[in-house]
């Protein structure tokens, strides 16, 4: 095994409630946290990912270095005590860490499995780390690999396109109610990421008008700009309800913001044109009793999950295919990682030397006539000696203590100079 260890620590939406994730999310960008991370003793390469649904650090450390506690301190800061954060934190090593990273990149670990945003977020996070030279040969390779795994999963399975996501479920339902989404108007209450994703899908399916309604108008404007829509404040919510068809609500409000008695008169004004409410906020924004009104259809996140369940068999098939790809790529990476050790590299180098000598001897000897056995043996010996002599210095360099902390990089360069990873 190489002298490095890959370690991945993080929290995600599966185990950690939103309230905790919010505290951990990095609001100030990547630069400052990366600097902090670099100060931790024993870390050689590091990379940091922060999205709404997850915060993860990926590092390569000296074998035996104990950085787990320091890393979790870094993640949680002063937000939580060690006893508290233990229940949320996950920690993977080596091949497990690789596997997890590939799962994340391929969007198999996402809240909305198959959504494509995560890959962009991963790439951006990597760019920050790479710009600051935080990553080295192992993480560079690993992260590039994770991008290609994600692409492979996307092109070889239907995970991205088929009925995998909650947004998809919302579209399905909208189609059952409206027949088509073409020219339907969408109102987003709250400007969160989920709402954005749902809106993206709706617009992608032909919805025309997007109105963003948010407490802070500034955020609403930002999001509205993305869809060429308009932005309004929360006080205009009721006016808007008369004009739109599909409402996606995702505010962080603690209680219900829209009651049955508010919507009832609106239905009269709308001449009973159907209203389709999607409540993806937790806790819920919309009064469940809305669903009792004629021509009003309300679905919360669990209901949408039920629709997704309908297509579960199909999705499971695709997910199995996708995780097979991830497994395969993880294994390949493990092999590459193992090759980074000095001993196998030296063995590979010797083997390569022998191969070259053998090849050349086979070519030359038949052309030399009248050789005695003794002469033939001398020539063979000489060829082997030349090869050994030539390889001697590089090997000494490889084994040398000179720049030990960069041995991984050294091995990597070495292997590419001598082309040792070429498949036969």
């Amino acid at each position, binding site marked *: 095994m190489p002298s490095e260890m890959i370690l991945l620590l993080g929290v995600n939406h599966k185990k950690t409630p939103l309230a905790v994730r919010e505290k951990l999310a990095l609001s100030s960008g990547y630069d400052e946290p990366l600097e902090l991370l670099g100060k931790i003793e024993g870390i050689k390469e590091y990379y940091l990912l922060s999205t709404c649904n997850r915060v993860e650090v990926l590092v390569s450390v000296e074998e035996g270095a104990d950085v787990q506690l320091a890393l979790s301190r870094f993640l949680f800061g002063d937000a939580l005590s060690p006893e508290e954060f233990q229940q949320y934190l996950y920690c993977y090593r080596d091949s497990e860490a690789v596997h997890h990273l590939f799962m994340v990149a391929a969007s198999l670990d996402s809240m909305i499995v198959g959504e494509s945003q995560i890959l962009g977020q991963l790439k951006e996070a990597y760019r920050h780390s790479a710009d600051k030279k935080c990553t080295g040969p192992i993480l560079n390779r690993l992260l590039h690999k994770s991008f290609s795994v994600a692409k492979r999963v996307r092109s070889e399975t239907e995970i991205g396109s088929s009925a995998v996501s909650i947004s998809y479920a919302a579209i399905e339902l909208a189609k*059952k109610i*409206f027949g088509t989404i073409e020219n339907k108007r969408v109102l987003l209450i709250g400007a969160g990421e989920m709402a954005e994703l749902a809106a993206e899908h709706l617009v992608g399916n032909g919805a025309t008008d997007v109105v963003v309604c948010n407490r802070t108008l500034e955020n609403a404007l930002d999001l509205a700009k993305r869809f060429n829509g308009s932005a309004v404040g929360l006080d205009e919510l009721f006016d808007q309800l008369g004009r739109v068809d599909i409402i996606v609500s995702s505010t962080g409000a603690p209680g219900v913001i829209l009651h049955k008695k508010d919507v009832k008169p609106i239905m009269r004004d709308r*001449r009973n*044109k159907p209203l389709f409410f999607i409540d993806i906020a937790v806790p819920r924004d919309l009064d469940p009793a809305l669903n009792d009104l004629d021509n009003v259809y309300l679905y919360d996140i669990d209901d949408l999950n039920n629709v997704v369940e309908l297509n579960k068999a199909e999705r499971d098939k695709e997910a199995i295919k996708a995780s097979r790809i991830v497994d395969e790529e993880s294994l390949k990476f493990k092999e590459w990682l193992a090759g980074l050790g000095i001993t196998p590299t030296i063995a590979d180098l010797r083997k390569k030397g022998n191969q070259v000598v053998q090849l050349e001897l086979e070519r030359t000897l038949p052309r030399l006539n009248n050789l005695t056995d003794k002469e033939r043996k001398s020539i063979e010996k000489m060829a082997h000696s030349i090869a050994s002599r030539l390889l001697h210095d590089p090997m000494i360099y490889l084994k040398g203590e000179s720049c030990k902390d960069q041995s991984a990089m050294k091995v990597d360069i070495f292997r590419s100079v001598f082309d040792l990873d070429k498949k036969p």
Partner: protein
Amino acid sequence: MLSEVNYLLFNAVLLVSFVACAVYLVFFFSQREHLRKVARIIFLSSGILQTLYILSRYLIAGYTPITSQHEAVTFFAWSVTWAYLSFHWRYSVKNFGTFVSILTLIMLVIAAFASRAFEPLTPALQSLWLPVHAGVSVMAYGFLALAFCGGLMYLLQERELKSKRFGFFYSRLPSLESLDQLNSHCVTTGFVFLTLGIISGSAWARQAWGTYWHWDPKETWSLITWFLYAAQIHQRLTYGWRGKRAAVMAVIGFCAVLFTLWGVTFLLGGVHSYAK
């Protein structure tokens, strides 16, 4: 000779309609796309056979075959079938054919149990008004029957969507919007025919009995039916009644239609009763 052909034709109609209904049902369960095309072709054949059967009966009897129970119900089935097929050119509503084919088959089976004998026409019915009045009325029933099927489908789909269980019907039934459009289209068309039927009937009554309207039970019930549909259309246009209410109204309206067709004949009697 012709009467034998006539007899066989009706059995053929029954058989073909049964097959169409069966294939539609298999399609409904399996959702295999090629079955739908097969079913539609069989249903179209059934429609053509029904037309031939009614023509052959016309040739034998020498008058429009719409006076006995058997004839009226067969004509009803024919109008439902052709209303559906004509509707189909303009709109495609997912799995609508399954429901319509079941309704048609039920009517044809009822017709099969009624007497197929040819009865001489009473003098009052020997008029050119007979095909006009009865034909237009039965066409109205055909479209109203479609609205009824659409209404049932709407109520089923609405229940799935509201209860959030997403079971068997959810994936198989079309969107609420398309069912509501179907309802609006069929009720409007049916209502126009119904109005024409009542006007032509009243004109005929003036000619035959001297008064436009004399409160025969069938007339009364037609009027009640007419008001039910008129109310629905009025509400849709003014208050935007749609969706569930429109669907319920279509079902209630059709019950009134059925009562006008059968209930009146068997329970209340009157000049419209079929020849015994």
